[in-house]
């Protein structure tokens, strides 16, 4: 049994799986159910001024038989009174003293407002704070959420205000609706944040109804952009985590969020530099119980690899994530098709023919009338497209072919040519 405990910027948790601030963390009832199911921590749904919500609120992207590949929402922060939330948070902390309970906060751009709410939530014994500078809808129009997260100066300033009074670790939750997330991450770090969490949801329009011509979802005939999340956003989130993890100017722990649905996703985020992960959409799809396989799968993975503690894998892949200019130009792979498992759907052929370098031939055996697919390796550019479209795992294999040339990166090449100083 591997040690799954984590310590994220001073916040202790029995395992790396936290619930993200969202509908599943709206009440004490829910958070207690979650902790009973095994979740290691929860970021309570964002506290702030009384909020009025609308119906409907969620919409989903289903694709090719898979439900909820993506989800979006136009729900705002908690719509329950602060006192009620605080009372329930205190009760949760009393009953689950060893689980991480983090308060997500969002208030207007006023120093006193931040001071006041920080003092209130810390008084009931939370383990940390998460400043919501990410929510892209509704709150942003009032100058909060991603309206702050899109301005590094505002982020830095508000973090400084919070740090003036905060006794517990401060996590800053970042918006992906920005050109380069490292700028806000650095600003948070400069302001004194103890950690950053990413990503919040991405601006999105889920769809348009073909019969009514209304946006999906709509509120009495009108729609507005919502925040996108779920498995579909994972690659975007993972990149942002990796970019911040390898940036020395950020230099603080990361709580990874974005499309994490199972233990495998979590391992990827941990390897790419997240100290822990936060989950929401998968819970909205399947309930709190999914954490059982997340914990079990992570534990079995670590045991099978002979790794004693989950913290030993944090950041292990960061050094292999770099800039294009550092990639070896002399590394070459080509596709090879394993005939014994090929089902002759010919998808690799047409993908290569129409979208790549026309190097997969359909060879017909005149004797048997059977067809087989063969890669002309000299013309293959090693793009992976045929492997990607192949429906039978392992049938198209990308194999390394020695070029006989020493490794050479773009940067080295430009330097050798005297094009860079």
């Amino acid at each position, binding site marked *: 049994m591997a040690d799954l405990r984590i310590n994220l910027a001073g916040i202790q948790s029995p395992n790396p799986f936290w619930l993200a601030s969202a509908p599943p963390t709206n009440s004490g009832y829910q958070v207690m159910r979650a902790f009973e199911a095994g979740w290691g921590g929860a970021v309570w749904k964002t506290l702030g001024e009384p909020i009025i919500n609308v119906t409907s609120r969620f919409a989903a992207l289903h694709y090719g038989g*898979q439900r909820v590949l993506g989800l979006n929402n136009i729900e705002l922060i908690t719509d329950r009174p602060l006192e009620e939330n605080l009372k329930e948070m205190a009760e949760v902390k009393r009953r689950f003293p060893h689980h991480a309970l983090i308060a997500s906060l969002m208030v207007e751009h006023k120093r006193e407002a931040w001071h006041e709410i920080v003092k209130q939530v810390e008084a009931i014994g939370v383990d940390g704070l998460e400043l919501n500078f990410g929510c892209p809808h509704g709150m942003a129009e009032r100058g909060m959420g991603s309206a702050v997260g899109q301005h590094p100066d505002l982020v830095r300033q508000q973090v400084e205000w919070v740090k003036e009074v905060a006794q517990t670790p401060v996590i800053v939750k970042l918006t992906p609706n920005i050109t380069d997330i490292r700028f806000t991450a650095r600003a948070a770090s400069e302001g004194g944040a103890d950690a950053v969490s990413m990503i919040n949801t991405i601006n999105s329009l889920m769809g348009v109804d073909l019969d009514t011509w209304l946006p999906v979802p709509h509120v009495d005939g009108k729609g507005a952009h919502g925040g996108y999340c779920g498995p579909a956003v994972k690659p975007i989130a993972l990149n942002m985590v990796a970019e911040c993890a390898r940036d020395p100017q950020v230099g603080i722990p990361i709580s990874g969020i974005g499309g994490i649905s*199972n*233990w*495998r996703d979590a391992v990827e985020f941990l390897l790419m530099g997240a100290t822990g992960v936060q989950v929401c959409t998968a819970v909205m799809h*399947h*309930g709190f*119980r*999914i954490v*059982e*396989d997340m914990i*079990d*799968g992570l534990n*079995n*993975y670590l045991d*099978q690899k002979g790794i004693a503690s989950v913290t030993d894998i944090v950041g292990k892949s960061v050094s292999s994530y770099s800039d294009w200019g550092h990639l070896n130009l002399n590394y070459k792979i080509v596709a090879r098709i394993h005939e014994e498992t090929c089902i002759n759907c010919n998808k690799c052929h047409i993908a290569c023919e129409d979208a790549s370098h026309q190097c997969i031939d359909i060879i017909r055996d005149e004797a048997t009338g059977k067809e087989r697919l063969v890669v002309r390796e000299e013309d293959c550019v090693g793009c992976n497209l045929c492997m990607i479209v192949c*429906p*039978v*795992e392992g049938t198209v294999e990308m194999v390394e072919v020695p070029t006989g040339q020493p490794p050479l990166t773009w940067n080295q090449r430009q330097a050798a040519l005297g094009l860079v100083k």
Partner: protein
Amino acid sequence: MAVGEAFVSAAELFSNFDEVVPPLKPKEAIDEANRCLYCYDAPCIKACPTGIDIPSFIKKIATGNLYGSARIIMETNPVGASCARVCPTSQLCEGACVLNDASKPILIGLLQRHATDWAIRNNAVFFKPGERNGRKAAIAGGGPAGLSAARELGRLGYDVTVYEAKEKAGGLNTYGIVSFRLPQDIALWEVRQVESLGVKFKYGVRVGVDISPQELLAEYDVVLLSAGMGAVPDLAVEGEDLEGVYDAITLVEDTKTKPLTTEFIGKKVAVIGAGNTAIDAATCSVRLGAAQVQIFYRRTSKEMTAYDFEFEFAKQDGVEFRWLTAPKRILGRDGKVAGLELIRMTLGEPDEKGRRKPVPIEGSEFTVEVDYVVKAIGQKRQIPLLEAFGLEHRNGVPVLEENSFRTTHPKVYAAGDIIFGGGKTDAMVVDAAEQGKKAAYAIHRSFETESQTA
């Protein structure tokens, strides 16, 4: 595979006993696992006698957590690898799947096999013995119920000894289910899982014959009887002692324990009875090369106890079914079976269970030419064993305390086929496993209560 082949080579005979249902291919397993809706409070769980958390083990296949998947299965059902192959899934988990009406039910049995096969291939060990509690338990019979009880008692810290009459444990799974459904290796892997908990097995020891009830009761704190059922009863017709008369259990057992016989090649076989054991005996005969295999049953297809899929399987194998016929006499020549005299039957008035009783039709006797007669008309009760322990019983079914598996002797419990009291279906492996588990908990509970009141 079909009847009537004139020549069967030894290699072919051997391959006839390979598992007939292929495993899921890796992609098939992933596709199928991803098709599961992961229902909450799922009906498949409720339909499983052992209550395996089916959606969870399937979800784990989808996330690549095969160790965790197999652990869930084996945790709940100590003979989960065997059950993956022999359970009547269409009547249990798959029959309850919510996708039955919307699409097609999930192939739960094959997914269970996918996970447990992974565990077998990877020599996975799931369970540790509990801290010894100083109590000793004897288990009479190492079949599904006995193994299941031994596993749970071992985990609870008991010093467990299983007394097994045969050379190997596993009971029905090891000896009684045809190899092409359940290879012996699977059942023996389950035995090893129990052994790894420190459970001792004493083979070749028949309780009540080689060791007396008094000795067991003196040496152990508790005794669990899980001896299954006995041999096939006699047909009580003339000619039963002729050479060429088998009982179905012995016939199946021989195919799993001895070099396969070539004596059935090209011969005619009559099987009497239409339960699952009769089907096994018939399909075994086909696979041993018989030219003609006929099942004779005194009722009709509606009353037979064989599962639908077993019936279908036998028909595919070319087994012929002759309804409303009962044996009257086995005819011999030179001390060997030469034919079978039968009588046609008709269904009379329903009995107390609502089953119409077969009645012979006077003067309808007829004769068929056969070389072998296989008896498969049920199994005998373990009356001598029950009586040796001085237990109260009703027609060989021990009387149990309500909501318990405790017999009329306070130190003696019973589980598995030995307590099977009839019913609509056959006694199932999965039921025996669940009873073994429950009996173990009942035993543990009684000691806990005892120590609390002491």
